[in-house]
């Protein structure tokens, strides 16, 4: 039995890298600094160790050949999930390039709320260490932050010392939209977060009013979506008075139509505040199950985020038309490669297509896919790299045990090699 310290997690998105994990053969136990997200994700047991073709155990080579055979003559294969590490994404994009596939990250429709804003008007954002050391006001929009990342407050707001905030416990936290599910946002000196609740679907209106108030526009109404204008006016003044306010949201939590317009209003409001003789920054939350990793690697490999097709021999990005679920629902896709190395519960979205699953060991299926290659988890079974939510820091994932499971990259390379031998280029 060994104990490994300073273990980074690819699961929570906020880059915690202080976990202590006990390794006993193949069994892992988080003994320090675990949380509701990370601990079960690390401790999940390995079940399958052997690839299967039509339910029968085979070697990786045979499984790869079968997968290549399924992909060889397809018109529009879809590679979905895209939940893996940097090397896994590299291999995935190489395979997609070779077979002319559509690549679609499973969290893309959520990330799209941010990407459409970025690609239309841009933003001013910050990263976690700046939050930890500078933030004097945190505005949480439409998101239950502690459910998203249980240790966010402990690590980045209620840290004892900050370089530029004298008393971290006096930081202000304000929720707009959803109320927090627990009390992680209550400061160490007992100050509870201020909460202005409204329905998710009312956020576009509330945020629009908030931006108008920040800009000093007159508002005739007394309330908006149940929130008193006076409360929003106070919030606007607090944002302008803060030295370094941070506005955070999880794109996936904004589950209403055209939420990108709300992200855009927030981002433009932050730009406005920066023209009012103070600083303010956005902090989009994400980074789970490799979503930032997928967009980063696809970004440098193709120029586009991870909803991109190669069917015409070169990458084409479309944030709507390349949606894997839509392509499957419309019968446009004729094969599915599902790549999910982090979450055994995230199974393929359909069982009506010839399906190849590159999945975390432990994945179970209502209907057995044509090919299943159980793979190791980055940061547990092999070393790798994953991006944190703030998109700047790539964490170096450690290998914690010798499971003998192939990595995502190993499995996808094997399929690509089999295709090369079939002269598919």
């Amino acid at each position, binding site marked *: 039995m060994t104990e490994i310290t300073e273990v980074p997690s690819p699961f929570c998105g906020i880059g915690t*890298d202080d976990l202590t994990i006990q390794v006993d053969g193949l069994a892992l136990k988080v003994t320090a600094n675990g949380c509701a997200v990370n601990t079960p994700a690390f401790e999940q047991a390995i079940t399958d160790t052997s690839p299967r073709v039509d339910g029968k155990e085979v070697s990786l080579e045979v499984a790869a050949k079968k997968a290549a055979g399924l992909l060889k003559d397809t018109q529009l294969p879809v590679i979905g999930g895209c939940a893996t590490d940097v090397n896994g994404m590299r291999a995935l994009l190489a395979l997609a390039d070779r077979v002319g596939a559509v690549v679609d990250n499973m969290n893309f429709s959520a990330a799209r709320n941010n990407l459409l804003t970025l690609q239309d008007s841009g933003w001013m954002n910050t990263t976690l260490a700046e939050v*930890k050391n500078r933030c004097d006001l945190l505005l949480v929009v439409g998101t239950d932050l502690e459910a998203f990342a249980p240790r966010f407050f402990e690590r980045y707001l209620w840290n004892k010392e900050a370089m530029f905030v004298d008393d971290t416990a006096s930081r202000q936290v304000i929720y707009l939209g959803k109320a927090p599910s627990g009390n992680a946002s209550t400061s160490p000196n007992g100050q509870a977060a201020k909460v202005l609740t409204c329905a998710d679907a009312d956020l576009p209106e509330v945020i629009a009013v908030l931006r108008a108030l920040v800009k000093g526009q007159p508002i005739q109404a007394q309330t908006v979506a149940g929130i008193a204008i006076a409360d929003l006016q106070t919030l606007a003044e607090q944002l302008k008075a803060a030295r370094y306010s941070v506005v955070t949201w999880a794109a996936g939590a904004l589950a209403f139509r055209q939420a990108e317009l709300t992200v855009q209003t927030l981002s433009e409001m932050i730009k406005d505040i920066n023209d009012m003789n103070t600083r303010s920054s956005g902090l989009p939350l994400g980074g789970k199950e490799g979503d930032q990793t997928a967009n980063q690697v696809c*970004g440098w490999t193709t120029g586009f985020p991870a909803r991109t097709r190669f069917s015409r*021999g070169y*990458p084409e990005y479309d944030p709507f038309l390349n949606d894997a679920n839509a392509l499957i629902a419309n019968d446009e896709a004729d094969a599915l490669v599902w790549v999910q190395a982090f979450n055994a519960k995230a199974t393929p979205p359909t069982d009506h297509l010839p399906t190849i699953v590159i999945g975390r060991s432990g994945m179970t299926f209502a209907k057995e896919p044509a090919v299943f290659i159980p793979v190791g988890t980055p940061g547990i079974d092999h070393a790798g790299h994953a991006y944190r939510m703030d998109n700047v820091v790539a964490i170096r994932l450690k290998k914690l045990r010798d499971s003998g499971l192939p990595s995502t990259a190993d499995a996808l390379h094997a399929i690509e090699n089999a295709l090369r031998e079939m002269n598919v280029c």
Partner: protein
Amino acid sequence: MLIKLTGGTVYDPAAGVDGKKQDIYIQDGRIVKKPVKDVQIDKEYDLKGKVVMSGAIDMHTHIGGGKGNIARTLLPEDHRQDPVARTECTRSGCGHAMPSTFVTGYRYAEMGYTAGFEPAVLPVNARQAHMEMADIPILDKGGYAMLGSDDYLLRMLTAKKDQKAVNDYVAWTMQAAKAIGIKVVNPGGINAFKFNQRKLELDEQNSHYGVTPRQILQTLATAVKELGVSHPLHVHGCNLGVPGNMETTLDTMEGIGGLPMHLTHIQFHSYGTEGDFKFSSGAAKIAEAVNKHKNITIDVGQVLFGQTVTASGDSMRQHANHKHANPNKWVTMDIECDAGCGVVPFRYRDQNFVNALQWAIGLETFLLVDDPWRIFLTTDHPNGAPFTSYPHLIRLLMDKTFRNDMLSRIHPEAQKMTTLASIDREYSLQEIAIMTRAGAAKLIGLQDRGGLSPGNWADITIYTDNADREKMFEKPDYVFKDGDLVVRDGKVIHSKWGTTHVVKPDFDPSVEKGLKDYFDRYLTMKLGNFKISDDEITEDGRGSITVHPTT
């Protein structure tokens, strides 16, 4: 395999060879001496009438790291104009302003380049820079680690830590980030922006730390010299883009007191305030100062007309410049108590007075600096123009008639404000070879690169001599990388992987005590997880690390 390149006209400034007919032999990736008589030549290339140079080296090009990927993500409409299809030996991707990594490698190679250096590697983002560069085929690469706005250094300066302590920190950072140089961007200014300062003069104090840009430059230039790092401190100065900033630039040169210093994309720092538009060329004065101060090297950061995107660590100046964004979308980021970045798309237009004069200022600088060993050919890709415009730039430098023809097309008021028409100088092939090969290798401290004598790696580019220098330089006949033919007739025919160049200056290991405490208290990752290990670059079997000596 023994390869012979027969009868080409060789320009090899590293060996003092200036347009001489000379045979070159290649074996096991390197250039070798003429073999003894009866050794069999496996492959011979007849290079009669061809021009032979070593592979070109871009010493300042933004090819790896977070801001570049933000720039890519920001501009899908730009990529859609330039899709690049897969071939039997190349991957698909996209081109134009900020090409995908694979296309970056192919297009550089197709212009005869065999190495490129990313000049703004944020230590906390160095993993990304190396991972992106690991996906750039053919080219060798390396990076300059950015310091000067990081809170750790500023705290050291406030605490009046001695130079030795700073040197240890700088050396540690270079090893942790796998760098070959040190870069400073708007010294202290990126940090000051986080405290809501919107400009920072050379002698202006950071409002929190009380430290000035001049102190930061002095301290870092001294550290780089005392550590024996070949590449001098690489400086993106204060006040980028501000009319009148030539005074700051001259002061920066004078103020460094003879220490080696490289001033990058100096065109953006060479502006006066004369004329009706209060914007004028400072190139003559800047060039005069460069000619005088032998400790100074520069690259130009030439502006060429068209759409591009500017991606810089200088969040302070990029925020100020966002009003020029075209299309109107832009990003700034504050990053990890380490640095920041700003990404602003630009469309330089020849009928815009300022853009037209920027174009002229860059060319004046090229033509007025005497010593080609101390000036380098860059557009600060993609900031002044995409790197794919280098052949056009070379023609502007080598062909006065062409240059004056282009000059006659720009904004008429800008024509009046430049001395360009009166400058007769035309660069020679040897001077181009110095700027883009021998000089660059010498400046960065690359061993066995940038020259054609036996012992060098066989990075070799062969052109057909052509009076139209743009045509000549955009389509080499052959490019060899480490002895393998990778380009024929301007097209990649074989892809491979270059090495990552680094230096590993020594430091006192006790430097980690203070750093560990700082990381634990203030940063968001553990010190041990911050440092990049060699295997992160080599483990995929494609990458390799080449360590160059310190003096």
